[in-house]
């Protein structure tokens, strides 16, 4: 994911450069360590860790779409309402009309795409500021959710649908005691694959004469990466194994990281945010691409709405309220620029995790919802200030 090569030949320059690259990750670890100590180890207990993943999955999923929107220089305030609305649609379809789960699932994603298209149309082709369009969307879909639920909670969902959020991957080697070996194995394979690809990349870059990170640093980094993934896989595996939603989430993160860094579409999205007019005069179809980022956001918001509804096992009129703020905050904490053109998928995911760990940790500590918000707000401001300060330096 780091496509940045180091230009300074000296090692001090190298470390300084990378501190900035990994600064966000270090903050996440620091915050986790802080809460781990403060909660006497509750934070990283397997049960809590699994909960943490489930609680934040929908934020992470939406942050992936929001990052693209923010990179093109726009914003989407409606995602919380859309997620809530789609959850309501799912409930009406499955609970009231007994539509089969897979069909209802696809229908809901399609509804999300339509909503994204409807909003993206005004933003991309009519040049209405996205802030206004999606503010309107936020009100519209909040109201519509209320309307189709008739102000009541609708549930419970069929058990197969609940599995989306509360299910775990099937265990291939049952009877291994409390540990779930399949999950541990998947974690280990993932770790090996990541280390392997980064080693291959490094060798390829070196063969083209690009400055690469020093070998010692690379080994240490890879070892750490491997250890961290296996450690967390181990924790997850010692509860009930990998949650389904974590698998979906990881796959999506991988997909979006790939799309943003390695594909033409991804590069074009960054170009639009960097300078829309220059991009359009370079043959990039800026309007269509902007439109599609909103469609994409709609689908991801719908997926998040489904995950959230499945987790609560009921659709409530208030579902999704305020999600947009967490999602947008995640992107900005993760280093996205409010002016567009800048931001990384990895950053947005880490940003979402920082928000999630803080939510979770503060809840365990018994800090009231009032001061939780105060602290989260200050962290957002602090993170962005730090980023701006770093860039000026």
């Amino acid at each position, binding site marked *: 994911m780091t496509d940045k090569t180091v230009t300074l030949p000296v090692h001090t320059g190298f470390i300084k450069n990378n501190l900035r690259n990994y600064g966000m990750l270090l903050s996440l670890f620091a915050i986790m360590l802080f809460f781990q100590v403060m909660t006497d180890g509750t934070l990283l207990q397997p049960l809590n860790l699994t909960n943490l993943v489930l609680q934040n999955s929908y934020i992470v999923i939406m942050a992936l779409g929001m990052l693209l929107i923010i990179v093109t220089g726009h914003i989407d305030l409606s995602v919380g309402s859309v997620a809530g609305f789609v959850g309501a649609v799912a409930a009406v379809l499955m609970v009231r009309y007994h539509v089969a789960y897979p069909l209802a699932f696809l229908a809901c994603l399609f509804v999300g795409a339509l909503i994204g298209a409807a909003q993206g149309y005004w933003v991309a082709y009519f040049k209405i500021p996205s802030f206004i369009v999606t503010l309107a969307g936020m009100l519209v879909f909040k109201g519509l959710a209320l309307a189709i639920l008739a102000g009541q909670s609708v549930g419970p969902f069929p058990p197969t649908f609940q599995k989306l959020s509360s299910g775990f991957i099937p265990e291939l080697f049952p009877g291994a005691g409390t540990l779930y070996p399949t999950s541990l194995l998947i974690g280990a394979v993932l770790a090996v694959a990541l280390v392997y690809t980064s080693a291959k990349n490094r060798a390829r870059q070196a063969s083209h004469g690009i400055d690469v990170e020093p070998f010692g640093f690379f080994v240490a980094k890879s070892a750490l990466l491997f250890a961290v993934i296996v450690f967390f896989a181990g924790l997850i595996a010692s509860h009930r194994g990998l949650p389904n939603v974590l698998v979906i989430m990881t796959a999506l993160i991988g997909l979006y990281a790939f799309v943003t860094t390695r*594909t033409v579409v991804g590069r074009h999205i960054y170009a639009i945010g960097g300078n829309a007019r220059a991009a359009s005069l370079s043959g*990039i179809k800026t309007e269509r691409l902007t439109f599609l980022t909103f469609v994409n956001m709609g689908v991801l918001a719908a997926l998040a709405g489904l995950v959230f509804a499945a987790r609560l096992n009921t659709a409530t009129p208030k579902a999704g309220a305020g999600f947009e703020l967490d999602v947008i905050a995640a992107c900005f904490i993760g280093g996205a620029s409010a002016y567009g*053109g800048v931001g990384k998928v990895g950053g947005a995911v880490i940003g979402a995790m920082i928000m999630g760990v803080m939510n979770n940790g503060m809840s365990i500590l018994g800090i009231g919802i009032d001061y939780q918000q105060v602290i989260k707000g200050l962290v957002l401001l602090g993170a962005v200030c730090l980023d701006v300060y770093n860039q000026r330096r």
Partner: protein
Amino acid sequence: MTGAATRLSPIAAGWTNDGCNDAMTAILEMRGVSKSFAGVQALRDVNFTVEAGQIHALVGENGAGKSTLMKVLSGVYPHGDYEGSIIFDGEERRFRDVNDSEALGIIIIHQELALIPLLSIAENIFLSHPPSRLGVIDRDAVYRRTQELLAQVGLTEMPDTLVTDLGVGKQQLVEIAKALSKRVRLLILDEPTASLNENDSAALLDRLLAFRAQGIASILISHKLSEVARVADRITVLRDGRTVDSIDCLAEPVEEDRIIRSMVNRDLAHRFPQRSATIGAPVFAVQDWTVHHPLHRDRRVIKGVDFEVRRGEVVGIAGLMGAGRTEFAMSLFGRAWGDRISGRIWLDGREVNLSSVAAAIDAGLAYVTEDRKQLGLILDADVRKNITLASLGRVAPQGMIDDMSELRVANDYRNRMRIRCSDVYQETGQLSGGNQQKVVLSKWLMTDPKVLILDEPTRGIDVGAKYEIYCIINELAEAGKGVVMISSEMPELLGVCDRICVMNDGAFVGEFAAAEATQERIMRAIMRNKQIDKKVLQGDLRP
């Protein structure tokens, strides 16, 4: 050239004759000014003197230190941030910020205008200190005084006209009116005519001459040597942060060659590289091209134009600003500008329908925009990404970018075009204007065009970089491409093109082969269709 510095040192140290020459009184003396940024020496021991009521031109390549010197003078860099001293009105001054220098009447007008577009002229002029009673703005006084000030700069607009409704030339004059409202004693203009047409430039320079008569001194920073030669009383040349030459225009003749030599420290025997043109078959032809304004849809901006470029030919399009040259080029380029477009285009003998920019690029047309920062580059992105932006598909089979071949291509262009950057991962915004322009050119060369339209390709870049751009244009023509060059600098068109078409008011009004074209004939072709103040003509046509 090593002798130049020593020969000129008495001039550079112009302040030494301060006491003995009472005929001229210096309003400003900057003595031994040095300034460095993080180890880079931007100014070295610069001495700079402006006499009362003098127009002092400051010239030099981009990065020579002109702007830094002016920022020291105006207090942007406060006292203590630089070495040396500033003496204004006979007293040593230690400015803490811009307000301190403004209080003494040192007013700087930056290249990027600092006007607020949606406020009126009057509101802009009296933005910081409006005449007021008990904190309530006295609108009558504002209006009256604005009218007086506008009259002084030769504007007849109503004070409540919005600035956004004015052309750039008039906006520039409003800036000057704003300076006058502060009782200016020394006016600093940083490339005031860079974005003005010849008409507005002449009007602005006339203002400077009028101010000189009133005893207001000016410092004029400009790349346009012809206008410097026209109005300046003294010309000082900066190079690499040093004063390398100073010419008293009243005492000695002003030779452009001498100035250019001092600026670049090398003999530009030819300001334009030689080329032996081998012109082939037509590669690009346009017939009856008509374009309407996108907002005022009844207004025809381009009026049924025919145009042709041959293989290996460089065709210039001359004209005043607003003649429709950029609109013509952009409408050809995938209808990127305009509405209700009609006409036919042939590329390489085949009729094509260029309905989008992407289609135009595919067909082999490239358009290098006039405004590289706003329209040409993504300044935050690195050099590599900018170079491959318009033809990413060439390094991305199946839509997936092959970063190694992308890097290879970017490095190829970096070497071929001699782009000076630390590596291709450097942010494009950090490069100098000339190198940025080479990045834009690289982007378009990578699309492998048959025809390139270059819109003001050398605007705002220094003499050395200009020469390199001309060389690139020649190479392109020699490689058999058709090149169209839009430029407001007539010497450049005359030096580079094989044929020059003159556009005025959306139509071609003249065409000259290189051998028969002169500035005067081009200007006459424009004027035949446009009645313009005679004075302007004389000013601009001086050889």
